[in-house]
């Protein structure tokens, strides 16, 4: 009897999981995403204003790097987001590959351009920091090189998906590329520890940070703003992708009146 109950529980759990996936169909996700977008824009604006205020008017001048250090208020959030978005993108792509759920693959596709943008901003702001501080726009250092590879992984993911006409096959090929590329994320993250890099180590430490508290707060607020921005813009893009890919279904014809 005990075994029997266990099986029933199992069935109930799997049924509720199936229900959940049915809810995450393109048809129900399209309006849901539309309702979420304004909230994420509002959050991005609030965190952005607070973060910029901290970055320029509250955080003190750095003793060693003068006012030039203020670049970190955009450089660090962009770099964090470039890595984090990649992990989220690979997760959704992998889920789409394993469970054949369309919305997850569409979400991965929607995240790629935003991730590429964050990687590009990370490299750009890094170069603008490197020139005055190190005397070079670019060096072939482990941290910089692995971040450049991340940027190319995003571009490769987008190019591969664009090159394959059948969207489901494009999703699968993209997912494999995204999952293989995940190995690069710990390489970027630990590069400053594993190799002797010109790029400085992390200044953020929960126990003992080498930064002034107001600097740390400015950075965290800006990171939150970048995070909310990324969600808002990815949700906007996923709505377009849903309509593009589901255009021959009845619900899309009714959704766009």
């Amino acid at each position: 009897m005990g075994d029997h109950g266990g099986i029933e529980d199992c069935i109930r759990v799997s049924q509720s999981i199936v229900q959940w996936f049915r809810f995450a169909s393109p048809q129900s996700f399209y309006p849901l995403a539309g309702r979420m977008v304004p909230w994420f824009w509002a959050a991005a604006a609030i965190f952005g204003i607070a973060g910029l205020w901290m970055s320029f008017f509250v955080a003190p001048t750095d003793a060693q790097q003068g006012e030039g250090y203020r670049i970190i208020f955009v450089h660090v959030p962009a770099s964090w987001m470039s890595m984090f978005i990649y992990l989220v993108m690979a997760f959704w792509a992998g889920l789409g590959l394993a469970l054949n759920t369309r919305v997850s693959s569409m979400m991965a596709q929607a995240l790629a351009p935003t991730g590429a943008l964050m990687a590009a901003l990370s490299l750009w702001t890094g170069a603008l920091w490197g020139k005055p501080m190190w005397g070079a726009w670019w060096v072939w250092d482990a941290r910089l090189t692995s971040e450049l590879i991340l940027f190319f992984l995003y571009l490769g993911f987008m190019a591969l998906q664009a090159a394959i006409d059948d969207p489901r096959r494009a999703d699968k090929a993209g997912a494999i590329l995204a999952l293989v590329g995940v190995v690069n994320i710990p390489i970027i993250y630990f590069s400053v520890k594993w190799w002797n890099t010109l790029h400085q180590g992390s200044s953020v430490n929960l126990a003992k940070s080498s930064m002034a508290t107001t600097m740390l707060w400015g950075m965290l607020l800006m990171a939150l703003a970048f995070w909310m921005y990324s969600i808002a813009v990815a949700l906007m893009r996923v709505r377009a992708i849903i309509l593009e890919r589901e255009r021959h279904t009845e619900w899309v014809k009714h959704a766009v009146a």
Partner: protein
Amino acid sequence: MQWHSVGEFFAMGGYALYVWGSFGACALLMVAEPFLARRRLIEVRRSLIRERLADELESQQRTR
């Protein structure tokens, strides 16, 4: 606050090019990207509406 004048703020202690180059690039791209995403959604919606109108026109002609 560490700034004594607006000019001093914009000069960024001699790092103006680097600081404003960084924040400016972020602002530019983070305005352009949502704009493009929004345009993509509007474009697909427009083409769907056109398609629907074409379908309606076709069915009207057929019934005539």
